[in-house]
């Protein structure tokens, strides 16, 4: 039953992706950005879906099982606060520049803005290295989820089967339909995992006497899970977690989705409704993870959400959960693989191999080949990786958050220079590598010198400082007016009189 529901879901996803291909125009811009035609509803759902990964459903509930309701503030409402501002300040400006200058990738923008091919290539390498572990979250999460739902390590479907299923389905609709299929599928999948999360929540808390009954039980038996507390929940930790969502502003796949918008007005609904969508997705995940402590004390041998559903609901709901997890996973992984295909085609093949002369058909062909290669690489890596989903995610987000100042500088600070941007990138790389190596020496979540401050709390300010200091110490860039809107709003023209 469980496998049947999951496979039926994957078939529906494939059909939606194939339908998206019917509008395909055969050009590179259509394949990579859906000809910049995505409207407000699909843009909102795509942006929400793209930012929800296996971590949201499995990792967050697992973390809530360990830490309690404070996880909602750490990763849920912190994102709900920061991300709409990123859409407003970064997303709309990137869309505006992309439309005017014809950009398809972040690297094209940075190369053009700073007039430096080498800087763009440096950024390209760092983005790829950060993106791969983030893709692994999806591939590995899909495999682990299917194993857990179908009976665990001993009797369930092997993890590699779930990973292969995820990669195969994504390969199908992303290579076939490009951005339009990806956006349509993401919209469908976002609705699916929102509904599945809500249904799972009501079914499970019903077995515990409602949310009030479950929380009352927790308050008596696991008091520390229903309070934020001051001992473990440090101010520094809470505030530094606000830095992690900054990573959204530097994601290559978010950049692609921003550029696919039909017009700037399409951003309005995403900016306003994003915090509500985030709450709708994160609340059931965190609440169920916390409630899971009542019957399932740590350590666990599988995801808490899966254990709750298997013990409180039948195979049908478990199958739906599997579909919901796959939805959350694939709605990110498809965008990531498409973005990587776009970057390799535009930033490497087109830039170096064909000196910006590459036919539309060959752009699409290269894009498809690179999508397939990256999915294959992510699948192979998922077979050997041992890091937990949560750890992989946090380290990837940390690196992307450190890169955000470079994009903010390029978009808003005319005085920023290529040397400053390069210094910021190298600072992020050096600090990230240092903190990551330190984290391998300790058990559990790493904070800087045990202070509660996560590494992003050091890396982001250091990146800002490097950008500012080196930019001010080097010669200002020339001829950059085309990257900035005119300071004064143009006078409205008199209407034409017939």
């Amino acid at each position: 039953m469980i496998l049947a529901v999951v496979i039926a879901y994957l078939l529906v996803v494939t059909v939606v992706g194939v339908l998206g291909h019917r509008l395909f125009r055969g050009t590179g811009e259509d394949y990579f950005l859906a000809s910049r035609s995505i409207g407000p509803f699909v843009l909102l759902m795509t942006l929400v879906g793209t930012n929800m990964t296996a971590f949201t459903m499995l990792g967050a509930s697992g973390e809530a099982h360990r830490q309690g309701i404070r996880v909602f503030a750490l990763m849920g409402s912190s994102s709900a606060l920061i991300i709409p501002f990123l859409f407003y300040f970064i997303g709309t400006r990137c869309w505006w520049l992309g439309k005017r200058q014809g950009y398809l990738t972040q690297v094209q923008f940075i190369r053009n803005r700073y007039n430096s091919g080498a800087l763009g290539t440096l950024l390209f390498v760092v983005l790829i290295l950060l993106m791969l572990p983030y893709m692994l979250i999806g591939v590995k999460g899909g495999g682990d989820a299917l194993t857990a739902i179908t009976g665990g390590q001993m009797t369930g479907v092997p993890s590699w089967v779930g990973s292969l299923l995820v990669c195969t389905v994504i390969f199908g609709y992303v290579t076939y339909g490009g951005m339009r299929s990806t956006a349509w599928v993401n919209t469908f999948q976002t609705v699916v995992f929102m509904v599945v999360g809500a249904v799972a929540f009501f079914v499970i808390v019903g077995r515990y006497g409602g949310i009030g009954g479950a929380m009352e039980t927790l308050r008596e038996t696991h008091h520390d899970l229903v309070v934020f507390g001051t001992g473990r929940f440090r101010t520094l930790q809470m505030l530094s977690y606000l830095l992690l969502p900054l990573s959204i502003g530097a994601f290559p796949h978010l950049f692609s989705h921003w550029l696919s918008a039909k017009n700037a007005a399409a951003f309005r609904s995403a900016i306003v409704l994003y915090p509500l969508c985030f709450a709708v997705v994160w609340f059931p995940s965190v609440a169920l993870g916390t409630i899971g402590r009542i019957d399932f004390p740590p350590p666990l041998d599988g995801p808490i959400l899966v254990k709750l559903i298997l013990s409180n609901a039948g195979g049908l709901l478990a199958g739906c959960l599997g579909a919901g997890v796959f939805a959350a996973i694939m709605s990110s992984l498809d965008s990531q693989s498409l973005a990587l295909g776009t970057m390799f085609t535009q930033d490497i093949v087109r830039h170096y191999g064909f000196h910006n002369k590459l036919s539309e058909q060959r752009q699409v062909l290269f894009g498809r080949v690179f999508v397939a290669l990256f999915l294959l690489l992510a699948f192979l890596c998922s077979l050997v990786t041992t890091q937990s989903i949560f750890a992989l995610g946090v380290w990837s987000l940390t690196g992307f958050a450190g890169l955000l100042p470079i994009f903010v500088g390029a978009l808003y600070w005319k005085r920023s220079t290529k040397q400053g941007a390069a210094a910021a990138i190298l600072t992020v790389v050096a600090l990230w590598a240092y903190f990551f190596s330190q984290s391998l020496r300790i058990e559990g979540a790493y904070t800087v010198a045990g202070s509660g401050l996560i590494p992003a709390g050091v890396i982001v300010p250091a990146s800002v400082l490097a950008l500012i200091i080196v930019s001010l110490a080097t010669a200002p860039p020339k001829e950059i007016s085309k990257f900035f809107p005119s300071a004064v709003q143009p006078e409205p023209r008199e209407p034409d009189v017939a």
Partner: protein
Amino acid sequence: MSGQLKFSAIIGNDEPEPPTLNHNHHPRWVLLLIPILVLVFANFWLWESDSLIFGLPVNLLYHIGFCVLVAAVMLVVVKRAWPPYLDKK
């Protein structure tokens, strides 16, 4: 009607609205909203409370309400601080 906040203008309507600003960039007062919201976000005065309201721990309910507050603030931002250059054809 033009002064009212129309919800239909956010969901499903992708047509640009008449500009509300006489300059051409993202207003700086929007940036000031971020530290204000961060202060509201860090509800340290409630951190040790174990009260349940509507069956939910008060801190969890607070942060759900916080998400609604952010949505309301962003509604005002897109209505009152939308840079005209974005909608220029």
